[in-house]
């Protein structure tokens, strides 16, 4: 049994799974993301997924293969279970750290705090009714929801009381219309996804 | 459909009466088939294997295979009982398996035919 060989095989397989996950059309559609533009390289990714196992069977031992199989069943789930928004956020963080390495320590501490706050409530929430779903949402999602709610509140206020608007903004005998901020198309799509949760 | 079978039962006798009875009580039949039926069939299939399985190079395969495969045998029988669309056919298959395997076991236990373990 070569732990090193098994670990290397698991890493290669996970890279293939990660590629397939990142470019999967249904996964991207479910989270309101644009379809992947470019070559998915499905054949290459599938080769990366399965070839390490084949090689372990051929060159390694049965123990290596069984360990690899068990590990990718769990690790594959872990890769697929992380939402693409969180993955994108992680990539952005890594890019920011790479651009400014001296901030790595500060970012690492903040990242660990966010990760613990995000992961632990999820594991405690598994199978238990009653947890606040919004509490586990991505920080970006929370900010988007807040922005959408603010805009909806503005619309509702404007529709409900046009005389108030004219009183607030118009002079005697004059009526001035305040132009409301236009909704962006992507915000509408996000609102639909969040509302229906199904695409 | 049940009425047609019942008319045929009147004319032709017990097999069609049995089919009619099955079709009057599909849920009970399914429960019997997938519950005690699957369990008994699986146990008899396992019990009969030492008689007809070859002993293999080491002379023990016919003893080891049924012990190892017992859970899988039950799973196959159970899933068949759940998935079979034609209940009378499912019942017939289960009955045939139980009768045939049961006969093999009975003959082996009474010494009429041998399990090759001895």
């Amino acid at each position: 049994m070569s732990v090193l060989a098994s670990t290397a095989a698991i890493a290669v397989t996970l890279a293939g799974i990660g590629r397939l996950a990142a470019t999967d059309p249904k996964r991207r559609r479910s989270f309101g993301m644009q379809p992947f533009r470019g070559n998915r390289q499905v054949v290459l990714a599938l080769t990366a997924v399965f070839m390490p196992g084949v090689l372990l069977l051929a060159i390694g031992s049965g123990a290596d293969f069984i360990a690899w199989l068990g590990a990718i069943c769990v690790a594959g789930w872990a890769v697929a279970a992380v939402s693409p928004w969180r993955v994108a956020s992680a990539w952005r963080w890594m890019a920011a750290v790479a651009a400014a390495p001296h901030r790595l320590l500060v970012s690492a501490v903040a990242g660990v705090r966010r990760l613990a706050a995000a992961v632990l409530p999820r594991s405690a929430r598994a199978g238990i009714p009653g947890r606040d779903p919004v509490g586990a949402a991505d920080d970006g999602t929370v900010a988007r929801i807040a922005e959408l709610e603010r805009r909806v509140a503005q619309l509702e206020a404007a529709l409900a009381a046009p005389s108030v608007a004219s009183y607030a903004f118009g002079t005697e005998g004059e009526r001035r219309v305040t132009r409301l901020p236009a909704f962006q198309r992507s915000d509408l799509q996000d609102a639909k996804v969040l509302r229906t949760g199904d695409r | 459909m049940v009425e047609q079978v019942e008319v045929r039962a009147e004319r032709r006798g017990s097999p069609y009466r049995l089919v009619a009875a099955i079709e009057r009580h599909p849920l009970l039949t399914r429960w019997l088939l997938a519950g005690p039926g699957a369990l008994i069939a699986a146990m008899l299939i396992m019990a009969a294997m030492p008689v007809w399985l070859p002993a293999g190079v080491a002379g023990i395969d016919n003893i080891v295979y049924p012990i190892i495969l017992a859970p899988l045998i039950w799973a196959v029988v159970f899933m068949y009982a759940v998935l079979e669309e034609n209940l009378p056919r499912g019942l017939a298959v289960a009955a045939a398996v139980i009768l045939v395997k049961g006969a093999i076991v009975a003959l082996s236990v009474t010494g009429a035919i041998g399990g090759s373990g001895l």
Partner: protein
Amino acid sequence: MIPVSQGQMKRLTTVHGWSGVVLGLLLFTVVITGTVAVFAHEIARWSAGSSSNRALDRPIDGIVRGLAETMPRFYLEDTNIWRTDAGDLMVFFHAHATNPETGEPDEYGTMFRVDPDSGAVLARDEGFMWHEQQAWEPSALRKFLVDLHVQLYMPDPWGLIVTGLLGLLMMAAAISGFLMHRHLIRDLFVAERPGARLVSARDRHVLASSWSLPFAIILAFTGSFFSFAFSVSFPIVAQVAFGGDQEAMAKTLFEAPVAEDARPVRAADLDAIRAAAIDEAGGPLTFIGIHNYGRADARVHVWHAAADGRLGFTQTVFDGADGRFLGIKPQVGNVPSIGNDLNALMWPLHVGDFAGLFSKAIWGALGATTCFVILSGLRMWVRRREAERLWRGFGRAVTVTAYGLPIGMVGSAHAFFLSLPAGDPIFWTPLGFVGGALASIALGLRAGDDGRLAQLLWRILSFGFLLLPLLRLAVGGTSWADAIAGGHGEVVSIDLLLLLAGGVMWWARNSSGSYRTAAAEPAE
């Protein structure tokens, strides 16, 4: 993936859902205790305060020879030699006799616990020793946790039959789930969709179960095999193939035929046999069984643990009179066969101990994934029926069980350590589990809000983790300094893991957000 008709889909859904609801919590008990039992040896070493890899790597011939000279010939029919997780050498000289309490054939003899370095006899006991676990089990905590998994701490054979049936249920649930899922491959990367709606709960369950499907079937199948093999299948096959003579069947499967020769001879040097065994099949050696020690027809069977790419045990056989190597014996039968290969796969596939901590970590993760699958499935069931009081109550039961079992296991550990000074942990360890479980149930019956209940149980569990290492040290357990000096790695590492788990859980308790009962959702 596989086309099924509407009627078949309805039946599969009924089987999958109702089998999960009726027996899912019991299955969860087996799976979560199994996840812990993967690390049974590590837990034994940590709780006993010392570690040993149980290898028979020190001289034993002088010790065994000296003890055998004091034994009546009757007791030399079989001699078992092994080392406990705490490092003590165990030597059990015994013969076969009918146990008057059970009416079954059993092993009666004298068991010695010996210091492997000095050879000093630390304890000597006589009787049907496999029933006297305090004589050979260094950790009542490990024994309890393993028994809880293997037979739900129920008496033989009912416990084994129940766990066997639960294994069959798990297989049926996995297969029916596979057939129900029309788009298994297409949904393989669909993470839980946001919004915490019913479809999100479905995503959570489906994703975890799809990825863990192969091992769900393997673990269920091998678990059922172990439960039923000796309790049900063996007697049935023996009845058909050997006229009911189970002893004859056992001899056919496990023993090589030996021509009887009762002449007394000087027994072969066991240390020379150990060295030869390692040369032939590699180490480590974990068990030696000697048949007819001191006779011309003696046989020495040496068990080699899984290592160097071997998935299962290897058994080498030596002549007990002159120490000649007689060959590698398969686990069943006397020559290699497919039946033996299949049988040899069962243990490593179920337990995952073939590559030390590396494979155990993977198997622990697989067990945890299966727990997640069960709980997420039950949660989905409850979410669909939240409007009904019965199912809200069931949801409460799921919460209590999900937390109550870990709390119970931690409670058993607390009771183990607390009862160590009094010397009767075998009695108190199970009671600690019962206490922890009952406390969780009591809180579940009293709590008004599911969210507050989960939060409270979370805190109790984190507190339990944090206290355990402190309690272990307080009752005189091995200190970290002594553990590091003595190379008892598990003592320190498990203490640290418990402190880390408890600490992170305690710290995260306020980061988990507010709890409120999910409002009833409109039908999807």
